[in-house]
């Protein structure tokens, strides 16, 4: 068999294979909605008929359709992970599940090097039917994930061995800010509402429904972005903080890494407090406003550079030592201290000039 014959035969085989694939695709298309990557409409709907209905399924099998709809997993469709579900489903047989690392190989290799590896599977932190990127989640929710395994009081005690006011730090910071390395950070500002809308109530992240009620059905952003340019200035944040119409709503901020890695580690450089506690700390300059969405995620709105500390300082229960200090207060403090020098300086000078008077008197006596 010469080379030309081999070439001709290989071309014939390739053509036959291509034709077979095309025929199979056509046959599949005739069966109904496609299960291919990127097509979620048809098959998801079929699955969610039962799995989105609390009357039909319970527990982990029940999927919140609103939360699931916007996820990448919804876009690729249920069969991408749960392939070969039998025609007799539900027949009591276990549902086939894809392994996360089939798609997320890079994350998996990073995670396998972390201190969490072997201790918690992906689903230990992430609900695959509610997966959200760090952009779509508030810092408090990130900590709720960690709190699933790490007991709050034990963590507070453990951190308290070296960290002053550990409970406050654990409440005000996402764990990943200190336990994952990132090149840059930003302050995610979000709105909290005091419990029962009282002045002394415990602040909790305001929900979409709560804020929608306050705005009277208008876009939530209009609470702060009064000129509607989809950009939040320092002036607008100040005006929000001073408004008495919704005094129970306050701004809170969490320093969050720009990119969240899965390499959970103990970073010794985070023990340097001036990373945050210092005037004009670079990590505190960039900020965004995170507003809740109807589907349970958060959208980010750009905020003027350097606004975070100024805006948060305007709220009654935020003060960060070393970073938030009023210049006016510092000047008044300096004047008070200088006031204490008036007596020693003036009296001391006169005392020195009149020293002879006292020496004379001593001699007389």
């Amino acid at each position: 068999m010469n080379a030309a014959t081999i070439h001709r035969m290989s071309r014939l085989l390739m053509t036959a294979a291509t034709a077979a694939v095309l025929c199979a695709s056509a046959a599949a298309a005739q069966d109904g909605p496609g299960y291919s990557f990127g097509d979620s409409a048809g098959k998801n709907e079929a699955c969610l008929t039962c799995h989105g209905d609390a009357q039909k399924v319970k527990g982990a099998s029940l999927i919140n359709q609103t939360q699931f709809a916007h996820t990448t997993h919804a876009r690729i469709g249920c069969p991408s992970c749960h392939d070969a579900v039998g025609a007799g489903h539900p027949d009591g047989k276990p549902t086939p599940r894809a392994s996360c690392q089939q798609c997320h190989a890079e994350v998996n290799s990073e995670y396998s090097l972390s201190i969490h590896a072997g201790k918690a599977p992906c689903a230990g932190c992430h609900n695959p039917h509610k997966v959200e990127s760090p952009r779509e989640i508030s810092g408090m929710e990130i900590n709720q994930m960690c709190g699933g395994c790490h007991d709050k009081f034990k963590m507070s005690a453990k951190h308290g061995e070296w960290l002053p006011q550990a409970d406050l730090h654990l409440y005000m910071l996402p764990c990943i800010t200190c336990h994952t390395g990132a090149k840059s950070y930003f302050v995610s500002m979000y709105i909290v509402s005091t419990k029962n809308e009282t002045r002394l109530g415990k602040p909790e992240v305001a929900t979409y429904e709560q804020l929608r009620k306050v705005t009277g059905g208008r876009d939530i952003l209009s609470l702060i972005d009064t000129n509607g340019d989809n950009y939040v200035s320092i002036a607008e944040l100040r005006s929000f903080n001073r408004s008495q119409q919704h005094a129970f709503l306050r701004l809170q901020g969490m320093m969050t890494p720009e990119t969240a890695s899965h390499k959970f580690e103990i970073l010794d450089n985070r023990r340097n407090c001036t990373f945050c506690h210092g005037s004009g700390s670079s990590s505190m300059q960039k900020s965004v406003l995170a507003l809740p969405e109807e589907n349970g995620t958060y959208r980010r709105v750009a905020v003027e550079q350097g606004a975070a500390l100024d805006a948060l300082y305007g709220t009654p229960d935020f003060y960060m030592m070393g970073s938030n200090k009023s210049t006016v207060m510092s000047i008044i403090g300096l004047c008070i201290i200088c006031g204490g020098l008036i007596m020693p300086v003036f009296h001391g000078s006169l005392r020195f000039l009149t020293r002879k008077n006292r020496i004379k008197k001593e001699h007389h006596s």
Partner: protein
Amino acid sequence: MSEKKMVYLQPIPIRVWHWTNAIGIITLIVSGAQIRFPEVITVLGSYRTAIWTHNIAGLIVAVFFVFWLVYYQMVRDTLDKIYIPNAEDLMHGILRQLLYYCFWYFVGRPSPFHASPEVKFNPMQKAAYLVVMFIIVPLVVLTGILLMNVTPLRVLILMSGGIKIIDALHFFMACCIFAFLFTHVYLATLGATPLAYFKPMIFGWEEVEEHHEEPHVEEPPTIYRPVRHFPEYPGKTP
């Protein structure tokens, strides 16, 4: 005619309190300055060290403040006599002492006030210490305790007007103590010698001048007869 006499003015508990307080307050000023201006002041090294130092020094000063209060009020029962100006102090004493510091001192007149264990402070000192020890120090201690426990005492902080009010009060009161420190140390040098007022706070004893006037003996009236009373025999005189 005057003679020099040693008076035991400062008992050991007060001297211990005073010097612990002095070291504590200087530590608090230095560490507090680093906490507020970490980009400028780095005397204590890391920020964390400054926080721990400030917290520990603050607790020591707070505990010793209670000790001072208990000692003077409950053990000696002299808190009000020593620290609270009486009517005479308010009407004349403060003005007299002010005139002394502003004028008479420069012409070489002696101080109108002489310390004794019962009346340690001149009227001006009393007024100043009253403000410092009964307003400024308690305020700085209370606000400091609130700032050390932001999460557990969150409701108390909010009831007091918010954390920024507490911080502002703590900062301004601390500045007042710092300012008072200059005046306090300077006035302590105004004794007969510059160290005369420091010595009693170290050794307990102060050298005071006692003025004796020649006793003017009046001739008893001729009809006067000294009568000795014996209370155990009422109504009977020898």
